[in-house]
């Protein structure tokens, strides 16, 4: 799945920031505890979260996560977006909450990162 398909499914509007490489995305993780993502040991291509802070982008950077989706319409700050740009992480924002966003992506074939 490409970032553009995620944007369509989650009705995010245009990606905030650059899409790097536009590789095929197969795995995702959703949650609000960053240490839990890090504990996973897997590599989520997409990270969905209700948290909006620079550490979300850093966590994505550490795990080679291509795309961060901020949920419930929370808007990232300029600082967050410029960090995402420098880390090569694409940012999407959706008005949907976690349950629905995950359901839509799972239904379209995105699988849990292990």
């Amino acid at each position: 799945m490409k970032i553009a398909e995620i944007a369509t499914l989650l009705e995010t509007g245009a990606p905030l920031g650059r899409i790097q490489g536009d590789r095929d995305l197969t795995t995702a993780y959703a949650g609000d505890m960053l240490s839990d993502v890090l504990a996973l040991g897997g590599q989520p291509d997409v990270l969905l979260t209700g948290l909006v802070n620079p550490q979300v982008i850093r966590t994505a950077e550490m795990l080679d996560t291509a795309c961060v989706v901020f949920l419930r319409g929370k808007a990232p700050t300029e600082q967050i977006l410029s960090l995402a740009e420098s880390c090569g992480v694409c940012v999407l924002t959706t008005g949907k909450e976690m349950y629905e966003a995950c359901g839509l992506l799972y239904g379209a074939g995105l699988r849990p990162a292990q």
Partner: protein
Amino acid sequence: MTAITRTYQVPGNDFARAGEASGHIKRILKELGFSPEMIRRVAITTYEAEINMVIHAGGGTVTATISPQAVAVVFEDHGPGIPDLELAMQAGWSTAPQNIRDLGFGAGMGLPNIQKYSDVFEIKTAVGQGTTLSVTIFAEGKEPI
């Protein structure tokens, strides 16, 4: 390649910059062509340890030594130290306050994660003096070559 060493000063309680050192180390490893698996283990380990310095110790110094066989990283701080290391190592144990939990940290998984993803793991800590955490990740898995 001979070993290269990089040193970073990590400021305390600065959540905009927390992760800079780990991000920098990760970029060096990428440029040097280490495997994605190895790089991810280093990234998780260093990031959790860097965050701990920022949250719990008022910052500190990170020194990374990179050779073809291994990456060794030392995190030295002069924070409060850890009174009960056995407790601190338990998954889920955290003294992080609510404002830190609101950032997505304070799950008490940092030290267990660091131990899990490193090959050599050593902590020296003294209350009132500080904490030094040393980790090594080998390029070819758990054993040194």
